[in-house]
């Protein structure tokens, strides 16, 4: 019935139903929980999405949107099955307006492709998550993605001006637009980061940013993690806003060096990538100040990327660090916690303790300037006992983030992974207010059920069962 309806809307090559094909879509980067959708569809137009959504409504079947599936918290896990609407074939750039500094893109466009397109004109799209070579703009909108350069430039929501948005009942509305803010509620602001639970963005108006005139990219080498985190605190405290401030600890350095042979010192306790950008005038002074602060905090060496090639190589190492982690263990779980930046030294000590307590190796590569940690827990997913310890250690890390006044997610989202933490971060009345928003847009909870709120509806039990099955 459902399939017949879908086949009337879509050509055969836009529908997947074979279990072997569906297996690809059973999870995202959070591999601890898995569930296959009943069908995956690949619309190419807004009208097709509207038809799909209405068909799901008529058949009482849940649905959820998916981009490239690079998310890390189970945001596109098809809890309870249903129809997965893969947007990867909607990948056109519809308009680029350099004069007025915006572009209109389809949601399946890969993040980096937009920047590559803008590059010859001296522009870029500022949000640059580490997965930018694969992740889609639509997925970035759903999770309000960050990236290394958000410290100065802000996250996705700061660069999205408007959306063409399809509500779960099939209504299509334009929200915001090229001017960004209009009279009334900032609907764009609340739809960005809603993790696909309020509807589906079918077009995105994004801000495009002029490339900086110059960069100063430094690599600070520290004997100990503690020195590196103190340095971060001093740079921020000195009133400098770097474009990026990223830390990698010894485990990561070793993995990255093995993968890319950049020349990282293998005995270093931690390295910091410290980048300032903007006008050439005044940049050298900032580079000098940062270098001094690094030396004051015990850096044994501060290297500077002297060419664009060197700079790119350094960033490649940083952005592909997660891939390099595959060299350290068969499986890994990337966590995403936030603490006030001054609490970083304490938090990193605590992560080390937690690693010892649960007998796990934990590597750290993260957006230090934002206080946004990404501890990577190394394990073997074939060993249920290790999986249990990974979950418990993750829990302990996030508990500590909360105890320090932070958040359990800075850029990956709640998804299904962190459902249990929502009641820890928010009071029941706070959650009920968020649920009112969900109810307004998604009254039947047909769109992305079982996400973000532990009390969102009947699908929770299915979710819990899924969790047990995965373990």
């Amino acid at each position, binding site marked *: 019935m459902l399939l017949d309806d879908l086949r009337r809307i879509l050509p055969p090559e836009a529908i997947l139903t074979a279990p072997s094909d569906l297996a690809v879509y059973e999870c995202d980067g959070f591999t601890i929980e898995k569930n296959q959708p009943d069908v995956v569809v690949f619309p190419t137009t807004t009208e097709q999405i509207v038809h799909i959504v209405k068909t799901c409504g008529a058949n009482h079947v849940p649905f959820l949107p998916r981009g490239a599936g690079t998310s890390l918290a189970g945001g596109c896990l098809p809890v309870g099955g249903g129809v997965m609407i893969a947007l990867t074939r909607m990948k056109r750039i519809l308009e680029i307006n350099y004069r007025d500094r915006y572009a209109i893109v389809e949601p399946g466009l890969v993040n980096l492709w937009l920047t590559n397109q803008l590059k010859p004109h001296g522009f870029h799209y500022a949000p640059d998550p580490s997965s930018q070579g694969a992740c889609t703009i639509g997925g970035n909108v759903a999770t*309000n993605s960050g990236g290394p350069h958000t410290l100065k430039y802000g996250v996705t929501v700061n660069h999205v001006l408007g959306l063409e948005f399809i509500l779960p009942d099939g209504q299509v509305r334009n929200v915001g637009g090229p001017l960004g803010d209009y009279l009334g509620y*900032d609907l764009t602001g*609340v739809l960005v980061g809603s993790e696909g639970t309020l509807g589906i963005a079918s077009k995105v108006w994004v801000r495009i940013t002029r490339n900086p005139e110059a960069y100063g990219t430094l690599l600070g080498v520290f004997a100990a993690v503690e020195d590196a985190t103190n340095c971060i605190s001093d740079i921020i405290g000195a009133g400098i806003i770097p474009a990026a401030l990223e830390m990698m600890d010894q485990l990561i350095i070793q993995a990255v060096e093995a993968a890319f042979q950049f020349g990282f010192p293998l005995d270093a306790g931690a390295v910091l990538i410290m980048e300032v950008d903007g006008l050439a005038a005044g940049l050298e002074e900032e580079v000098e100040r940062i270098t001094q602060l690094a030396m004051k905090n015990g850096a044994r060496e501060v290297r500077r990327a002297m060419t664009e090639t060197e700079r790119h190589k350094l960033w490649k190492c940083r952005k592909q660090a997660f891939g390099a982690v595959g060299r350290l263990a068969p499986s890994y779980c990337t966590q995403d916690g936030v603490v006030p930046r001054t609490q970083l030294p304490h938090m990193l000590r605590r992560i080390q303790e937690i690693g010892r307590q649960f007998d796990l190796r934990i590597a750290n590569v993260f957006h230090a300037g934002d206080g*946004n940690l990404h501890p990577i827990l190394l394990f073997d997913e074939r060993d249920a006992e290790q999986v249990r310890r990974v979950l418990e250690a993750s829990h302990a890390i996030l508990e500590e983030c909360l105890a320090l006044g932070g958040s359990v997610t800075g850029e990956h989202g709640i998804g299904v992974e962190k459902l249990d933490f929502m009641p820890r971060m*928010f009071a029941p009345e706070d959650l009920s*207010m968020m649920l009112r928003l969900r109810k307004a847009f998604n009254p039947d909870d047909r769109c992305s059920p079982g996400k*973000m709120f532990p009390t969102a509806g009947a699908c929770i039990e299915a979710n819990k069962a899924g969790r047990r099955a995965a373990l």
Partner: protein
Amino acid sequence: MTQPSSQSPEHPRTTAAGVEAVRAAVREALAAGQGIYPRGGQTQWLEGMLPPSASASGREVDLTGCCAVIDYPARDMTITVQAGIRIADLQATLAREGQWLPIDVPQAHEATLGGCLAMNTHGPRRQGYGTLRDYLIGIEFINDAGERIKAGGRVVKNVAGYDLCKLLIGSRGTLGVITQATLKVRPVPAAAGRLLYRFGRDQFAPILNLLEQTASQPASVDLEGQTGDDAAHLGVLFEGAKAAVEWQMRQFQREAGFLANQLIEEEIGGLGVSQERVDYVLQRLAAPAACRWQLRVLPSQLADAWPAAQVISDQTLMFPGCGWISGSSARTVDAAAVQNLRQRVEAMGGQLTVLAGPDDWRKPAMLWGTPRDDWALMRLIKQHFDPGNRFSPGRFFVDQPT
């Protein structure tokens, strides 16, 4: 930005000291079936407000006694304050740590943070620093059950749950009473520079071109015109590290060679140098006027919008980097002329809003123009957040939203 006047609807007022007192006042009004109008410094009180007859019986809840600094971990560059804090007091607190909130607010000694959030207040530095949505990271408000609701948090990066902070910015008191906010703040720029030119009507187009092409990055650019004066003023402000400001001042003057002998002010120094011009502009934006309106269009459309805007204004301010023109008139202008301009602006995809005018302008079509496509979603949210239409009835939604 309108002065409080006899047009203001008269409601009984409760002045509340502290969040619990605000909550008690809200609960009392809810129990009595009254509408609730959160009230700050009243500097923008009448903007978009309907005449008294359109507002049901209501109670003003005065938040100016709810103004404490809750937490200011300066090295984390965040601050948590109660919503009734005056903007000038907030900035003074931040200044003691060499920090600021780079949002320009007219009448900052009166205006409160909560009011600015509700109105999405901004000024000329919007070009360089963005708007309040770029700084608000956490919020607390009282909802229609009289509960204290929190969203966001106190760290600079956080995607847990829906970002209700965004929803409340610009909501004009229609979704709840904002009681507390957490902001990320920035270091005060070390240096600032100011250029002021006088230019003729025929130089308008080359100036817009220059502003698009310049290699400098102004924190703010304003063009100020007055009817009856063929010349207008161009103010350009730079902020940042000293070397960067100095270079930009030189660079801009090189690029503006055709204006070389029309430069009337050039100054470099501390933040005061740029603040002087910003204060002047803010004063113009808030000066008493019979009619006041503002429009937003894309930067490329300004060349068409500016002459059309001048026809109905005796004072016009343009912020080219933001696609924003503000106009005012000392005398009441013809409503049809405003609607004509609005039609042109809306045809460009822009928006014109009336901020002040005679009483008979106080109807939605005149104040806000044609509802955009997302207005239906705003109503949907209003219905779910405030089904009884208790928060600021008459603002945005004339009728009971059903």
